[in-house]
C-alpha cells in the first residue's frame, strides 16, 4: 500500500456519506484494491464506523480486486461461445500474481467471448473487433457518432434546451408519444414525469446508466456514440423537474462511456449549459442489482445496494428522501426527438441489442413491433448458425424456440408466449447450445446477483439453479407442481423486480420446452 498516495488522496476525498462509493472507487483506482487498512483509513476520514465501510465495500464485486484484473465474461452470449473454457485456460496460464475474475455480462456481447483488463476491451481471438454496428435510426441517429458538442449542434442538437417547451407541452408530448421506460419495467414516462412535477422541491434527477441486463448493450451505444444527446435529454428532465442536481449512475465496466460522458459534461459546462446546475457521474462497482432504482438510491447514499420497499416510489421518496426522477439512458435520449417531432408524429421505436449467433451483432433502432427474424436478417446480417433459441429481452424476459421468430416483439404479442421485451436485448443462440444450460446459467446469474434481502429470491433462485443443474443430468430435484408453487411464491412475494422476474424464464420454458422437464413429472 502506498501510504503517501493514500494520505494525499484522503485529503481530497469529500466526507459526506453520499461520497462513500465514489471515494472507494477512487482509492481503488489510485491506490489499490480496498484492503482492510484502506477501508479503515477511509472510515476514519469520513467519520463512519469501520464495519459499515466494510459492509458496503464487500457488497460490490470489484472494490476488493485490482483495477488491472482480467475480467472474463461468462454471461449467456459469451458462455455460448465457450467462455467457461476460455476462463479456465486463462486462469491456468495467468501469472501467479495476476487476478482473473469471472464476471456476469460485461455489456459487450457483440464481441463475445470477451474479457476486459482495466479499461481495455479484449475480445478473445480477434485483434480488431468492430465496435459499434448501429443504424441511423430516426429518433436516436446512432449511425453517426458525435465527436464534440459542435458536431451535436450541427445535427440540430441543443435547440430544445435553448427554447425550452413549457412543462405542459412536454407532458402532453410525452404522453402522446406513448414512450414507456426502456430500462425494462416499461412504465409510461409521461406519467412518471407528471408524478414528479406534483411533488415538492427540491427534487433530483438520476440517469440509470447501470446497464447490467445480460445481452443488453444499447445504453452503452448511446453514451459512446451520442453522449450529448443523452445529456440534452437529461437537462430537459432537470429543467422540467426544476432539479438543480442530477446524477448519472454508470456501471464501472463502461470505461469508454465514462470518458465520453465526462468530456461531454465538460463541454456542456464550458458552453454555460450547466450554469446553476450540477451534473455528476457516479460510478458503480459491480453489482447488477444497483440497476434497480431503489437499490441505486441506497448505493448512492453510501449503503449496500439493497432495494427499498415500494411504495413509497422514488418520485415521492427518492435520493436522500427527496422526490427523484429516475429514467433509463435510452428513455432520456429519445426525448429530444419526441419534443422536436411532437408525440404523435414521433416514429415509435427503440434500440434493440442483437447479439449471439448473428453475422453482424450490434445495436439497432427499429419499430416496437419488429420481429426477431427481421432484426436478425435485415439489421444484423443474418444468422451465423442454425438458430436454437432466442431471448427477446434480458435475463427475465423468457427463452423462446425458433417458432417465435416471427412474433412482433411487443409487450402484448410476447405476453402470449409468456415472455416480454424487457430491455430489448435480443440474444440468438445456436442449436448446439442447450436451452437447459441457458436456463441454468440464467438462474445462477440471479442467485449470484440477488442482494439477499428477501427470502423467496435469496433461496428460490439458488434452488431453481440447482433444479436446472440436476435436470442437465436427467435428475429431478423436486416435483413439477412444487416448482410451480415456488415460482408463484417468488413472483408474488419478492421485494423487487429481480426476484419477481426470475420465475419468468422458468415458467416460460415449462410451457415452450416441456420435453426438457419430463423428469420432474407432470404439472
Amino acid at each position, binding site marked *: 500500500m502506498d501510504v503517501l498516495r493514500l494520505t494525499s488522496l484522503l485529503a481530497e476525498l469529500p466526507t459526506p456519506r453520499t461520497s462513500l462509493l465514489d471515494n472507494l472507487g477512487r482509492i481503488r483506482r489510485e491506490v489499490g484494491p480496498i484492503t482492510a487498512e484502506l477501508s479503515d483509513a477511509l472510515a476514519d476520514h469520513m467519520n463512519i464506523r469501520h464495519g*459499515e465501510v466494510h459492509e458496503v465495500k*464487500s457488497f460490490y464485486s470489484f472494490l476488493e480486486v485490482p483495477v488491472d484484473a482480467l475480467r472474463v465474461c461468462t454471461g449467456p452470449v459469451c458462455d455460448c461461445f465457450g467462455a467457461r473454457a476460455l476462463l479456465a485456460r486463462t486462469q491456468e496460464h495467468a501469472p501467479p500474481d495476476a487476478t482473473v475474475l469471472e464476471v456476469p455480462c460485461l455489456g459487450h456481447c457483440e464481441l463475445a467471448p470477451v474479457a476486459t483488463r482495466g479499461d481495455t476491451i479484449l475480445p478473445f481471438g480477434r485483434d480488431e473487433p468492430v465496435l459499434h454496428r448501429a443504424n441511423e435510426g430516426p429518433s436516436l441517429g446512432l449511425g453517426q457518432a458525435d465527436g464534440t458538442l459542435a458536431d451535436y449542434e450541427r445535427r440540430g442538437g441543443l435547440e430544445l434546451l435553448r427554447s425550452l417547451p413549457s412543462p405542459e407541452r412536454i407532458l402532453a408530448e410525452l404522453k402522446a408519444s406513448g414512450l414507456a421506460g426502456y430500462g425494462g419495467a416499461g412504465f409510461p414516462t409521461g406519467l412518471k414525469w407528471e408524478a414528479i412535477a406534483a411533488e415538492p422541491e427540491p427534487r433530483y434527477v438520476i440517469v440509470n446508466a447501470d446497464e447490467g441486463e445480460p445481452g443488453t448493450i444499447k445504453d452503452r451505444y448511446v453514451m459512446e456514440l451520442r453522449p450529448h444527446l443523452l445529456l440534452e435529454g437529461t437537462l430537459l428532465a432537470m429543467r422540467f423537474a426544476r432539479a438543480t442536481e442530477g446524477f448519472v449512475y454508470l456501471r464501472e465496466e463502461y470505461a469508454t462511456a465514462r470518458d465520453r460522458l465526462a468530456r461531454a459534461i465538460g463541454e456542456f459546462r464550458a458552453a454555460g449549459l450547466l450554469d446553476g446546475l450540477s451534473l455528476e457521474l457516479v460510478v458503480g462497482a459491480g453489482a447488477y442489482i444497483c440497476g434497480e432504482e431503489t437499490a441505486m438510491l441506497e448505493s448512492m447514499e453510501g449503503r449496500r445496494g439493497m432495494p427499498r420497499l415500494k411504495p413509497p416510489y422514488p418520485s415521492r421518496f427518492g435520493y436522500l428522501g427527496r422526490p427523484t426522477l429516475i429514467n433509463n439512458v435510452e428513455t432520456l435520449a429519445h426525448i429530444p426527438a419526441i419534443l422536436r417531432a411532437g408525440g404523435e408524429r414521433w416514429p415509435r421505436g427503440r434500440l434493440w441489442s442483437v447479439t449471439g449467433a448473428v453475422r453482424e451483432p450490434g445495436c439497432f433502432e427499429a419499430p416496437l413491433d419488429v420481429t426477431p427474424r427481421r432484426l436478425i436478417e435485415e439489421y444484423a446480417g443474418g444468422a451465423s448458425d442454425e438458430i436454437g433459441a432466442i431471448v427477446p429481452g434480458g435475463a427475465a424476459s423468457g427463452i423462446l424456440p425458433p417458432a417465435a421468430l416471427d412474433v412482433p416483439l411487443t409487450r402484448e404479442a410476447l405476453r402470449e408466449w409468456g415472455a416480454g421485451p424487457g430491455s430489448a436485448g435480443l440474444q440468438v443462440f445456436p442449436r448446439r447450445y442447450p436451452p437447459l444450460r441457458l436456463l441454468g446459467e440464467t438462474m445462477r446469474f440471479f442467485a449470484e446477483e440477488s442482494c439477499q434481502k428477501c427470502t423467496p429470491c435469496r433461496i428460490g433462485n439458488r434452488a431453481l439453479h440447482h433444479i436446472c443443474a440436476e435436470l442437465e443430468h436427467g435428475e429431478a430435484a423436486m416435483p413439477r407442481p412444487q416448482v410451480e408453487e415456488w415460482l408463484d411464491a417468488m413472483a408474488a412475494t419478492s421485494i423487487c423486480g429481480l426476484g419477481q422476474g426470475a420465475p419468468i424464464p422458468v415458467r416460460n420454458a415449462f410451457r415452450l420446452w416441456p420435453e426438457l422437464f419430463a423428469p420432474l413429472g407432470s404439472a
Partner: protein
Amino acid sequence: MSTPELVTVTIDGRRAEVAKGTGLVETALQAGVEIPVFCYEPRLGPPIGACRMCLVEIEGMPKLQAGCTLTAQDGMAVRTAATSEKAAEGQNATLEFILVNHPLDCPVCDKGGECPLQDLTFRYGPGNTRMIFPKRTFEKPIPISPTIALDRERCILCYRCTRFSESVAGDGQLVARNRGAQSAIATFEDEPYRAPFSGNVIELCPVGALTSTQYRFEARPWEIQNVPTVCAMCPVGCNVSATTREGKVKRIVSRNHPEVDEGWLCDKGRFAHSHLRAEDRITEPLLRVRRRGFSPIGWDQALDEAERLLRGAGSRIVTALSGSETVEGAYGLARLLRGGLGAHSAVLPEEAGHALDAYRLPLSAIRDAELVVVVGDDPVSERAPIVDLWIRAAQRGGAELVTAGPSGTLLAAPGSAAQVCRDLAAPGSEVGRRLRESARAILIWSGQGGQGGAHLAALARALGFDGKEGCGAFHLPATPNGRGVAAAWAAASDEEAENPEPISLLIVSGDEAASDPNVRALAERAEAVLAITMFHALAVGWADLVLPATSYLERDGTTMNLEGRLQRLRRAVMPPAPDELAWLSQLAERFGIALPPYPALVFEELSPVAFGGLAFGEVGERAALPPRAEAAPLPPLESAPPPPTSDGHYLQLLRYRPLFSGAAVERVPELQFQRPPREVELSADDAERRRISSGDEVSVRSNGTSTALRARLDRRLAPGVVRIAEEHAGDLHALVEVVKA
C-alpha cells in the same frame, strides 16, 4: 399531547380499534390474531420487510403484502393465513424456502425448544420439505467473541443482529458481508465483537445462529426454570429472567420493562453471573488465626466472634456500605448497629438525594426528548449502560445531545460538573436557553461528586422544569442500590452520627466496599475489621472476621434504581451459605433486637418510614415508578474546591470506573476481553507535543510512582487531561507526567 385518531381495522373478520398508524402486527395481536414474523422487530427501527413471513392479503390490494410494513388505516380489511388461502400459500412457501436451506439440527441446537423458526414451522409450516437442496455450508460454529458463537448455516439473514449493531447499539461491528450466495453475517475483519451490548443479538436472533458460548449445551428449555428478577450490577436495574437448572444460574435474559430497559441488557448484566461459582468464592465464615492466615469456622462460632467484636466496639463502629445490599439487608444491618449498639457512623455509597425526585421521569422518557444534556466526567455507558441506549434512541428520533465534560461536545475540566450546572443556569448560556425553551429536555449527571443530584435539581429548577411534564433529570449513581441503601439506613434511626476516633471496629459490607481504597485506608486505622464479602481475594490479609456474602441472584428483597423505582429481587438459586438477613437476624437477637429473617417482614417494618407504606406484594413484577415529588427546598449546595489543573507539563489525571470491572467481572473468563486494555488516553494536542502516537508505550508518573501503559489518542479529549481506567491508574496522583518509554 393530542389524543391519537382511532381507526377500525378488521382482521380475519375480527374488529380492532387502534390508534391510526399502529403497526399491523400489533393491531392484529389486539384482535387476538397472530401475524408471524422473523425480521420484524420494531425496536430496531423501521421495518425492512425482508423475510416475507408476515404475508397477508389486504382488501383492495392485488398482491400479497408484508404485514409488518403496514400500519392500521381506517376501514382496512386484512386476511391472514388463517382465512386467506393466498396468504397461507405465500407463507408456506416462505417457510419452506427457509427450511430447505436450514440445517435442521434442532436436536443439537441451543435454541431448540424456544426457537421462533421451530415454533412457526410447527404452527404454519408444511409437514416436511420436499427437496434435497445443497444448503450453504460454512465452517461452524465460529466464535465471534468469547461470549457469542455464530452458526452461519442456521442464519436466515433477517438482519436483526446487524440492525441492532448499527442502529440501536451504534457499534457497527456486526455486519452483512458480500452479496449473492456468499452473503453472510460477520464481524469486521473477523475481529471479536467487542461492544458493551453485544449479547442482545443472541436474544434477537430468531434462530440458533447466534448463541451464547456460556449457555452452549448447558440446558434444554424443558429442563430449566426462569426466575423473574432484576439485574443489580448497576443502577439501571434491568428486568431479567435468570434461567436456572439444577440449582445453578445458566444464563440471564431480558424480561423487558418498557420504561427501564426496553428489553436490552448490557453484557455485564448478561454474562457476569458465572461469578457465583468463582473458585475463590467464600462459602464459610473465616477467622484470622495468624498474621495472614485464616481458618474456616462454623456459623455458631462465627456469630460468637461477631458478637464479641460488636460488644467490644460498642458505638465506636464505622460501617462501610457497598450500595449493592438489598434494601432489607441494609436495614437489617442498620437495625442491629444503630438500634442495638448506637453505632450510627457509616460510609454510605454516593447518594442521589431527594431533590431530583421533583424532576422524576421514567428512563424511557429520554427517548422522546428533543434535547439531552449530559454533565460530568464519566461516559454514560460506563456508569449506567442502558441509559446510553436510551440517549441513542433519542438521537435516532432527531434529538440533539450535548455532553459537557472532559471529552464532551462542550469541553469542561474534570470535576467541574457543578460549575457547568451553574453556567447552564446563567442567563447568557445558549444551551441553557434552549433547555429553557424546550418542552422535552433531559438533564443527566454522569460522574462523581457528592451532591450531583442536588446540583442538577438546582439547575432543573432554574431552567423552569417544574411543571413541565416532558422535562426531567437523572443522576447516575456509582452503585446499583445506593438510593435504597441510603433510605434503609436512614429508616432505622434519625440519630446523628459521631465519627468515632479511634475506630474500634470497621464493618465492611459487600465487595464494592471491600475493594474501595478509601475503605482499605479506614481499615488501617481500625482496631478490628469484620468483612462481609464473596471472594477470598477481597478479604484475606486485612479482615479479622470474614462472613460469606451473597449475590443479588441469591437473595430476595428489593432494590431501588436510579430513577427511584423500587424493584423486586427474587432468589434464583440458593446461596452456598445463609444469606445476610438470615445470620443478621440471629445476631440481632443476641442484642435483643427483633429482626425477622424474611425480607417481606423486614420490608413491612421499614416501608412506612421509607416508602410511604407500600406493601411488599405491591412492588410487582414490572415495578411502577412513583409519581414526581412536590418541589421542595433544595439542600444547601457545597462547592468542592476544583481539582488541580494541568500546567502543560503535568496533566490532569481523570480516573474512571469501566463498566467491565469489579470483583464479579474479574471472575468471569468470557468477559476478560471486554475489560479495558492497559492504556492511557491522551488528547491529540498533548500527544503531539510529546511526540506520542496511538499504540506507543508510555510511562505515566507522579511523585515517585509510575506505571507503563499504551497510549491512545482521543480526539475528543480536552487538552491537559489524561484518562486511565481505575484499575490501571493504581496509586497515581491527581497530576501526572506522560513520557514516551
